[in-house]
């Protein structure tokens, strides 16, 4: 996709012209992230997070492939092979800590990326497909992260696998058979570990493929922007390169800085000490908790403590998966034609409540299951579903949005107090 004023790739050197005729990859890059892709000029730093997610994926793949050269996916030796990586493999400690903390960074960045989408209405027409592909990527990431955590075969690895695969037994009639089929046995054991390793290696490449579709789908209409107003003319955009390559470099630097602080100075901050104990099927840990990025969903799961037609366990499983699946329907649940929450005061207020709600759910997911926390979780889970399924459809119909700017350029000029048109032209 390009706007009519997009720059065209015109190779001058003979080698580049030859390549352009035979396999136009440089043209593809030029049109996707180079000077040939016009992007709204008013993007803020929340637009950095897509690239950061891609960088995090690349880091995970590189560290993961090297780790896989040294890891042994057999229940008797897996834990020992990870310790051997930490102690004997050159820079093995770095690879392991980078990969484990890289998963946390990847999910942090993706959560902020999704938050951007929710706030600025990036899921709305004409970008519904971008959003749907994004939710698919998120689901694949969660599966990959879960399976990766099982691989070191520590206490949390084993018992986390036990809990999560236990969900399948909640399905009536066929649930238990499905669970045993997935596990390769009656409980997580060597068969489970082996197949999780295989799938954990595979899925990141599936994610990479879906990301290509995700970016392709985005480049058809082009990027959204903080006002939510469509691009109207050349003065509304700048070429991706060098403007956003430069800005992404800054974002990348900050990302890597935070990542380095984690890996080198606090590598076990986000982990659980129980995963440094070898898996023991006969000894259940006092508190089985997933990694921080799954805590809100874990809280939703645990909140369903009452039977009502269906058993509570099944409600919990349906709600936990439902909490992510409902994201697929978001473009149709929220029918407001106004994209950006900057111009939707009611929607914006509810979104801020949702953010706080998710943080509360995260806290409850990891906290002791005392009555106070269970009640907090139940209220927070109720709000989560109410927000997406009841509040959003009604808000779209009943709110009065603030007046939108006429164009992106108008919004930019208003911010700078208005000035001569020459200043807004690209140098």
């Amino acid at each position, binding site marked *: 996709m390009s706007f009519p004023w997009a720059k065209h790739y015109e190779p001058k050197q003979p080698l580049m012209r030859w390549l352009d005729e035979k396999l136009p990859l440089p043209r593809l890059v030029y049109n996707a992230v180079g000077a040939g892709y016009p992007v709204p000029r008013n993007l803020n730093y929340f637009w950095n997070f897509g690239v950061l997610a891609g960088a995090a994926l690349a880091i995970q793949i590189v560290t993961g492939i090297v780790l896989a050269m040294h890891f042994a996916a057999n229940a008797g030796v897996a834990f020992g092979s990870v310790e051997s990586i930490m102690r004997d493999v050159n820079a093995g400690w770095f690879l392991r800590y980078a990969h484990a903390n890289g998963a946390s960074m990847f999910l942090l960045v993706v959560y902020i990326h999704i938050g951007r989408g929710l706030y600025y209405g990036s899921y709305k027409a004409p970008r519904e497909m971008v959003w749907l592909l994004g939710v698919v990527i998120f689901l694949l990431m969660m599966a990959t992260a879960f399976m990766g955590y099982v691989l070191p075969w520590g206490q949390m690895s084993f018992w986390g696998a036990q809990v999560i695969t236990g969900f399948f037994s909640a399905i009536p009639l066929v649930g238990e058979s499905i669970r045993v089929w997935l596990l390769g046995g009656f409980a997580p054991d060597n068969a489970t570990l082996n197949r999780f390793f295989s799938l954990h290696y595979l899925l990141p490449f599936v994610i990479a493929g879906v990301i290509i579709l995700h970016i392709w789908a985005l480049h058809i209409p082009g990027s959204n922007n903080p006002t939510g107003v469509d691009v109207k003319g050349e003065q509304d955009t700048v070429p991706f390169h060098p403007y956003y390559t430069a800005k992404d470099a800054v974002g990348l630097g900050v990302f890597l800085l935070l990542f380095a602080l984690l890996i080198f*100075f606090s590598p076990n901050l986000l982990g659980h000490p129980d995963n440094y104990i070898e898996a023991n099927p006969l000894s259940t840990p006092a508190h089985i908790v997933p990694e921080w990025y799954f805590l809100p969903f874990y809280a939703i799961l645990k909140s369903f403590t009452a039977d009502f037609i269906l058993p509570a366990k099944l409600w919990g499983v349906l709600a936990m998966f439902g909490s992510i699946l409902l994201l697929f329907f978001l473009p149709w649940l929220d029918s407001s034609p106004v994209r950006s929450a900057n111009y939707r005061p009611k929607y914006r207020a509810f979104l801020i409540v949702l953010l706080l709600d998710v943080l509360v759910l995260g806290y409850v997911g990891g906290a002791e299951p005392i009555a106070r926390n269970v009640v907090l979780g139940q209220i927070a889970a109720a709000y989560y579903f109410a927000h997406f399924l*009841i509040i959003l459809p009604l808000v779209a119909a009943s709110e009065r949005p603030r007046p939108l700017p006429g164009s992106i350029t108008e919004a930019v000029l208003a911010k700078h107090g208005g*000035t001569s048109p020459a200043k807004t032209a690209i140098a």
Partner: protein
Amino acid sequence: MVRLISILVGAAFVGVLAIALFGTVATAISDPAPETAEAIYHQHPEDIGLSSNGFFGRFDRRQLQRGFQVYKEVCSACHSLKFVAFRDLTELGYSEPEVKAIASQWAIEQPSVNPETGEATTRKNIPSDRFPSPFANEVAARAANNNALPPDLSLMAKARHDGTNYIHALLMGYRTQPAELVRKFPGAKTPTGLHYNPWFANLNIAMPPPLTSDGQVPYADGTRATKDQMARDVAAFLTWTAEPKLERRHAAGLASVVFLLIFCFLAWGAYQNVWRDVKH
């Protein structure tokens, strides 16, 4: 239509949660969870301020050697150290001949096979061996320890919350169970064979106090071996066994962070330069 279905589904989830909430509150009022002894009497360890703490932490090699001596003379009778090899001890400042001597003189020998008869036997340790377990298998370990399994200590500093300080607090924490506790929670009275230690998660630990008196381990470097000193030294040693690359990690971290700070600064400058003439 979409709106109708979504409101119904939303109402279903919210409704079931409301029922669950009612149940939780009703149970909390009518049958509240009783207090537990652990909740009241469990203690959290204090920071012992080891040299390896903090961003620029480094090990104190003399302390690590003392800690190794404590492990060797007190702990190794029951606790394995299976992820550490004898050759790793060169990092504590021992020379190669010293490490060879430590290995060959180690009380527990390495399982082996008699090359002539094929029978199971043992041989002296060499530096490339990992520390052998004091017990042949878990059954033997439990049989010798009142059915308790002494855990491997290689990762203990990472396998417990605030592990380094926990190890010190636990070793120093043995005391008589307070009468008040037994009065309030008669069921939590320390059973025979266990020992009261409020730093242990469920207050009663199977391990008898390993550090019983000052001077128990006569330190090679002449430091006064008080119980507190021995506890600190073995905590430092076990921090090293869990994180042998700590110093290398901190050094690499410092270099990376300085590099990235400069990179961020330059990237910011380039960004400002690129966008200078464009309003945004």
